[in-house]
């Protein structure tokens, strides 16, 4: 695990909610740019994600970290006005048609948001048209599709074909416990992941390539 030198990032990683909020207020009062505070928080969240991936933190702790982040952002947001709300990129994500499992997707959303992405979450059982509309509206760098059921493979393939027909350059990542290289190729996606932390790594690498 990374050694976090900043007191605020370290407090996020340690899930010390009161300390995080106090430090955020303190820093804003002493004139630290809000965007810098957000970045520091994100470093803590990345560490939480890594600890979760390593089996050191558990699901409930990921949820707690998400809540701390939300509370901290509520304090920071009024100060962000006027400044360009900086995000690493936009990601549209959803569980594909025919599948209503959202736990894996929700974890991925939390990790992506924590890492600084703006995430448009379309929910579960998402038909191809909803993906297309959201892509048109939000112009994401990456589209993510989640699936737990093997029966989701056919709808996933159809959705990806529809997206490619509309906007051929869209980068598509798929995720789920049973997904592998073969399935990724069969459905025509660009990237795949099986662990919670994979989505952030994929998104980061896509943005470097673009």
């Amino acid at each position: 695990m990374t050694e976090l030198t900043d007191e605020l990032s370290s407090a996020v990683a340690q899930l010390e909610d009161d300390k995080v909020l106090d430090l955020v207020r303190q820093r804003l009062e002493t004139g630290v740019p809000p965007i810098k505070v957000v970045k520091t928080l994100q470093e803590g969240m990345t560490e939480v994600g890594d600890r979760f991936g390593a089996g050191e933190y558990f699901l409930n702790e990921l949820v707690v970290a998400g809540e701390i982040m939300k509370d901290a952002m509520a304090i920071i947001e009024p100060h962000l006005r006027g400044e360009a709300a900086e995000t690493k990129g936009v990601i549209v994500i959803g569980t594909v048609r025919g599948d209503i499992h959202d736990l894996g997707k929700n974890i991925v959303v939390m990790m992506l948001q924590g890492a600084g992405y703006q995430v448009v979450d379309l929910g579960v059982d998402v038909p191809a048209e909803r993906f297309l509309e959201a892509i048109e509206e939000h112009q994401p760098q990456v589209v993510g599709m989640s699936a737990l059921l093997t029966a989701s493979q056919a709808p996933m393939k159809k959705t990806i074909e529809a997206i490619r027909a509309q906007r051929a350059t869209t980068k598509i990542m798929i995720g789920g416990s049973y997904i592998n290289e073969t399935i990724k190729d069969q459905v025509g996606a660009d990237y795949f992941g099986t662990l919670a932390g994979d989505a952030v790594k994929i998104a980061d690498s896509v943005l470097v390539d673009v």
Partner: protein
Amino acid sequence: MTEISYKENVVRFGPGLPTVLIGERINPTGRRRFADALREGDLTTVKTEAVRQVDAGADILDVNVGAGGLDEPATLVAAVELVMSTVDAAICIDSSDASALIAALDVYEGKALVNSVTAEEASMATILPVVAEHGAAVIALPHDEHGIPADPRERLAHAARIVDAAAAAGIPSTDVVVDCLCMPVGADQQAAARALETLRLVRAELGVATTAGASNISFGLPERPTLNLAFLAMAIDAGLAAPITDVTVPGLRRLCRASDVLASRDARCRRYVADYRRYPSQ
């Protein structure tokens, strides 16, 4: 009372009756080596898991081969035939592929439990006629295309809709087993309470048998067996009739027998004592 059978072996469960255990381990979800083996046509794990679970006290075996990248109807038929030739246990045929369900039901020698139908119109229209035609029973997942309702009353409404649609298709309510939908407490603190309340509502308002994917409750947390056992004890009190769970977890079967005694579901503690005699050390 719900009845499932394999040849002469009849399994009965429902409100007020002792808990019946559905073994969950013949399922490649999240088990990469098992999934790879299935794709290569290797069914060894199906056989070993069937024996292991029946030895551990499973009454019904769930059989799922949804590994992706394989011919699911053919593989499911082969797995069901292998389980039938290996152990004397009733089968819960588990697939999201209707053609696989039909193929497996065609070869099954008895009254199967089908896993599953949802409250989505398309699911009910596809699955219920198949269940009716084969005289099987079916697990009802009380959700629709909008996802899993948090509110137990909404789950009850979905369950009632499935029971009605089943009746219209010629399936009696005793052949509908409602799943109370266990979600991980690690993600939502109220998840267990919602599942338990769903069990109580279904028992009170519909009077049909219930099931639960009980192991799901502990997803993402450490020491999962302890959470699963605590949940099972509470769920049996709330009326859970036939959990789908890992019967090989040490102490699980005995805990269910003990919970039956405490919930007045084991007259004169006969089953509990029989369990002690068959398995003197758990």
